[in-house]
């Protein structure tokens, strides 16, 4: 197991370097000069002299490879420069908004697991019964509802009409319920179906028949033989969904005025706040890479074939 994790972590180094290169190049691909943007946002007329001064200040006159290494050096030290708008360090800004997003993602994750695992398991065990059919319909509805629509419906019913939950903002646990539910329902619907299919596939496996033939209790067969095998593809897919959640849901955070990364990044994009965009792109890429690593590690703990694959 230790060797497997070590191998995976070492293989991440080139991936991360590649990501950093892409993120850096990104800013040089946009047709607008960052120095000009900076001047506009600082409300200074972008005359040729002013642009030249800023370009020199930002190091944009240096050769490209040197700019990259300078930037990379800073990035390694978690220095992403200063926001053009607020003039504060980007890292501090991201760290300010990230906990709210993390909070929302964790709550959504919990809701997804609480819905999709039991519903997925039981709709596979009671395949084609009324329960399964109802879950199927609900899953299709859940997966096809756009989140902006769902969020407004939830606000309308639960906040305005019934006055049960706050409609927006962050603070108490009650504030978390509506945005987390909105974010979770779509994913829960997808994972319910995915788990159901995966369960059914494993229920038909020869080892389940053999387990029954050995006189094992049905509950044990379902949990140990079917569910454990069925979870592997679900865990892999889930790594990606969690990444999207941590990236900050732009729509949900905006509708519920949730002070998370998603809302912050949208305003930064409108302002062309390049250091923020660059830091965010790099940050998200790292989040995805790490989540995939975690998903792989979980799968490896579940499945000895992955863990021991090399050394038979």
């Amino acid at each position, binding site marked *: 197991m230790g060797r497997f994790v070590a191998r995976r972590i070492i293989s991440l180094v080139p991936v991360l370097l590649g990501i950093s290169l892409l993120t850096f190049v990104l800013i040089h691909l946009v047709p607008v000069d960052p120095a000009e943007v900076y001047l506009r946002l600082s409300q200074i007329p972008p005359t040729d002299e002013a642009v030249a001064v800023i370009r020199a200040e930002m190091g944009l006159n240096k050769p490209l490879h040197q700019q990259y290494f300078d930037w990379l050096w800073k990035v390694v030290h978690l220095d992403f420069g200063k926001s053009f708008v607020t003039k504060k360090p980007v890292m501090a800004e991201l760290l300010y908004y990230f906990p709210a997003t993390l909070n929302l993602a964790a709550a959504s994750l919990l809701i997804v697991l609480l819905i999709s695992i039991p519903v997925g398991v039981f709709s596979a065990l009671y395949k084609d019964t009324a329960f399964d059919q109802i879950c199927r319909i609900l899953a299709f509805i859940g997966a096809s509802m756009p989140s902006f629509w769902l969020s407004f419906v939830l606000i309308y019913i639960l906040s305005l009409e019934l006055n049960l939950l706050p409609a927006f903002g962050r603070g108490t646990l009650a504030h978390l319920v509506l945005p987390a539910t909105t974010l979770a329902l779509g994913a829960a619907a997808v994972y319910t179906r995915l788990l159901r299919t995966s369960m059914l596939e494993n229920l038909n496996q020869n*080892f389940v*028949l*053999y*387990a029954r*033939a050995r*006189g*094992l209790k049905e509950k044990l067969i379902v949990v140990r033989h079917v569910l454990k095998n069925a979870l592997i593809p679900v865990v892999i897919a889930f790594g990606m969904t969690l990444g999207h959640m941590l990236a900050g849901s732009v729509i949900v955070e905006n509708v519920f005025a949730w002070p998370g990364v998603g809302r912050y990044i949208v305003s930064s994009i409108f302002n062309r706040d390049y250091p923020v965009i660059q830091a965010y792109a790099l940050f998200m890429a790292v989040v995805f890479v790490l989540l995939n690593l975690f998903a792989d590690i979980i799968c490896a703990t579940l499945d*000895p074939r992955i863990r021991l694959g090399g050394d*038979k």
Partner: protein
Amino acid sequence: MNEQVVLDVKDLHVSLPSMRGVVGAVNGISMQITEGKVLGLVGESGCGKSITCLSLLGLTKEEGWVIAGVAKIQGKNLLTLGPEEIRKIRGKEIAIIMQNPLTAFNPLMTIEQHFLETIGSHLLLSKKEGRNLAGRYLEYTGLSQPSKLLKQYPFQLSGGMIQRVMIAIALALEPKVLIADEPTTSLDVTVQRQILCQLARLKEKVRTGILLVSHDLGVIAQMADEVAVMYCGCIVERAPVERLFNQPLHPYTKALMASKPKMQKKTLQAIGGQAPSLLNFDGGCPFFERCHEKSCCCSHYKQELVQYDDKHWVGCAKFAVKQRMLYYEPA
């Protein structure tokens, strides 16, 4: 002679629904499995051998399946037991060795976990006792270093090893009946021979009655004490092994014997034609179309086993007619 019948199957029927009608997969078979003896069940693919095995374990209880008849073990009818009662019998009283051993083990679990969960489902033993029991039976099946083996995963073992593990798991609870459903089909010939020898040895040790299912006449000739030949869900002939191989009576058995590969003959002989579809099969001899010895009355003949002599039973109209003639002839 104190041969004790451990499993007595009478008139077992299994029919299953399909899109186009009811398929009679097993049509009234009867057999007795005796303590310490091997009953061989031979037949071509799709004749209902595996379904017979699974229905004895109550593993065919899917929606719409109809199972009728009596299968008695220690006075209990397996076919009418509730789910919990039959669960207690599976693995404990009737154990099974399946075909394709490599897919029969859960890839995520060690051999030890497979052992312990099986033992734990039937006996109250501590982990340590269970482990000792597992180790002992693994040694019986000729596997060395059982303690190392127990920690391994199924994918780390070869086909022959995993089949031995399966035999060890099956015998660890000392079942009255062992069903071996094509135990050696997925193995190469040398391993096949080792496994069969092991099985024969262990049969003596544990005094289990074995139902050996195979389509391989060689395996049957080597292992079985008595043979039942199955065709289209019916047993068409039943006799002690030497008798069956030396003096087959049913035309199907004869055709099977003729299609054994021989060194002198270059071409393999096959049985002409195809087995009839069992979908809505309306009686008559199922072998009628392919039979070389058929007569006019065969198409209406309701297949049933008649006694030819004290140990030999056959289900063919030829012999049935003779029996009836004898019966009706004034003494």
